């Protein structure tokens, strides 16, 4: 193990480490802590210039305010409307593409695979004008499904890379054996491979959920109003209205951050497994 386990060091070093951990964490998360505290600070404190001192009280009303006086609730619902279909769509499509690329040695296999991988790294800007124009022409501009369809297509690139490598690592003999038995290809996919894919599906679902929930660029390009804007774009436009009202900006930020954070804590193992794919051989 590297570095040498702290238990093998002297007592002093161990004490030092025990103290250093929380201190480092607080420094590391300092900006976030500041915002969390500000989100509970009464507006009157900010007006009096008390930004960092003791708050005069805990103002849950900041949260009540943004829920009742601004469409932030609607924005969060919109985000779900975009995020959940995207997760379902991208994972389903990539299960199939991943299966095709992992199991069949057809001509052009590697080419198609690399195309998915390369597409995944393309800068968004090269897609922006045509995708926006097409979405407009199809009458899907400013709708959750217009945004979700694009996300599904784009995320399929990354998800295919993931699924394909995952299926490749499964024991191929299973598929061989089924074929000898004369099982149809789609049944192999459905009854043999799919049940083994649960961890991959879980990992990809949390990852894609986080990516899409946090997407700002496409939300800005493909939606514009309260009816369909996701929370990221909504928060940005609310920020334009909440000039100098940092208690509201903070509360909004915390709310926007909450779902992915919860997702991460609930599904931590899968999340990290998905993210670190390829970091170990």
């Amino acid at each position, binding site marked *: 193990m590297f570095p040498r386990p702290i238990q093998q060091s002297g007592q002093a070093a161990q004490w030092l480490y025990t103290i250093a951990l929380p201190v480092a964490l607080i420094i590391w998360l300092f900006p976030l802590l500041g915002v969390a505290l500000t989100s509970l600070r009464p507006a009157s404190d900010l007006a009096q210039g008390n930004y960092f001192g003791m708050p005069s009280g805990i103002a849950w009303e900041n949260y009540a305010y943004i829920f009742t006086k601004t469409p932030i609730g609607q924005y969060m619902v919109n985000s779900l409307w975009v995020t959940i279909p995207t997760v379902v769509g991208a994972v389903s499509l990539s299960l199939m593409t991943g299966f095709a690329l992992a199991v069949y040695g057809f001509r052009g296999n590697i080419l198609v695979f690399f195309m998915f991988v390369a597409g995944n790294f393309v800068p968004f800007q090269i897609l922006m004008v045509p995708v926006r124009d097409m979405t407009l022409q199809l009458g899907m501009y*400013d709708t959750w499904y217009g945004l979700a369809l694009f996300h599904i297509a784009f995320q399929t690139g990354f998800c295919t890379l993931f699924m394909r490598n995952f299926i490749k690592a499964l024991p191929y003999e299973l598929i061989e054996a089924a074929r000898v038995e004369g099982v149809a290809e789609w049944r192999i996919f459905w009854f043999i491979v799919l049940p083994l894919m649960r961890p991959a599906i879980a990992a990809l679902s949390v990852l894609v959920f986080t990516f899409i929930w946090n997407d700002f660029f496409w939300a800005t390009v493909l939606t*514009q*109003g309260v*009816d369909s804007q996701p929370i990221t774009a909504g928060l940005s436009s609310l920020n334009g209205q909440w*000039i*100098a009202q940092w208690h509201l900006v903070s509360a909004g930020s915390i709310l926007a951050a909450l779902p992915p954070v919860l997702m991460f804590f609930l599904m931590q193992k899968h999340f990290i497994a998905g993210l670190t794919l390829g970091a170990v051989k």
Partner: protein
Amino acid sequence: MVRYTKGAVALSAAMLLATSALAQDKRVVTWNADYDPIPLAAAEALIADFEAANPEIDVQLNNFDHEAYKNAIRNFLTADPPDLANWYAANRMRPFVEAGLFADISDVWADNGLNDALASSVLSSTIDGKQYAVPYTYYQWGIYYNRDAYKAAGVDLPADGGVSWDQFLANCEKFKAAGIDCVTTGSSALWPVAGIFDYISMRTNGYQFHSDLAAGKISWKSPEVKAVFDNFGKLQPFVTANHAAIDWQDAAALLVQGKAANYVMGNFAVGVFKEGGMTNDNLGFMVFPEITAGIARSEEAPTDTVHLTSGAKNPEDAKKLLAYIASADAQSKWNGAVGQLPTNKNATVDAADPFLTAGFQALSTATGGIAQFWDRDADAEYAKAGMEGFQQFLVQPDQLDAILDRLEQTRLRLYPQ
């Protein structure tokens, strides 16, 4: 009848509903707008009056979110054009006119005597000799000041007609000594600096020169422009530091708190000042000081307009509504409700509002001309380049030569000589 929609789908759904609800043989005029709540209520009242006078016409207003509208109009003019659409005068309407999306309404102007009644807005409504817009409201720009800040720094309050340029700069020295920003602005969105520049430019060289500058006809290396920046440079040390990182509302807070004394702004800011706690007692307004003696005073007054679209399904009735919107009665009522100024010279304003009366007074006596604001007078790309230059000059005055070189390059590219 008013509908509220945000998106294209909802819009077409509303249209479908509208046609089916139309069994009563009324002729429909559709109107897409971008009103905030107060102007929206005023527009509803205007429509009700019009429908009462024309019972055979049904006006359907589709209201959009203000910011979203800038984007939406580019789509619906092609995909699903209403009869009328809100927009802005001068160069802001040019792309739509050139793409053939706004219709020529010179006949509405001629038949209703608008060339006389809307005299101050003829130029900004005209492209290539034809009118494409009906202006119905505008608001003045000028200097809003905090009387308490003047008192705190021991500076004499400006007289009714404002102060002279030298006096203004001398005041600034006193404010600086008292630790108060003489002039504040928040330029993170760029446009507020253009207000200051426009005024200094108009006061230095006059309206026509400024207008030519915005139209790309004047070299940034000319001595006249140099003179503008000399005057701008005199003001520069007294402008709020770090203005580039704050919004105009943040700067409004500085004025409200008395940390700043003057703010070159549009009349829409009065609402923000008053929300912050200012009253007619400590909030003052004056016109921007005269710089070059003898130049006819011109003012900045951005105009909002309504346009007939080329895809209009009922242009005849739409033109009737346009003529009504241009009328003195309709404008007095709409602007009275919203707190802005009518463009029809026969209309009246609320005498109880000191800022409106001052604005009406300032604009109706502005013999030099009425500018629309830098980003409406100049072509979009040119406007942006200019505003970045103005902002940079306020942050780095020593970079003036580089700024002017760059602006001149942009000019030569956009307007090949």
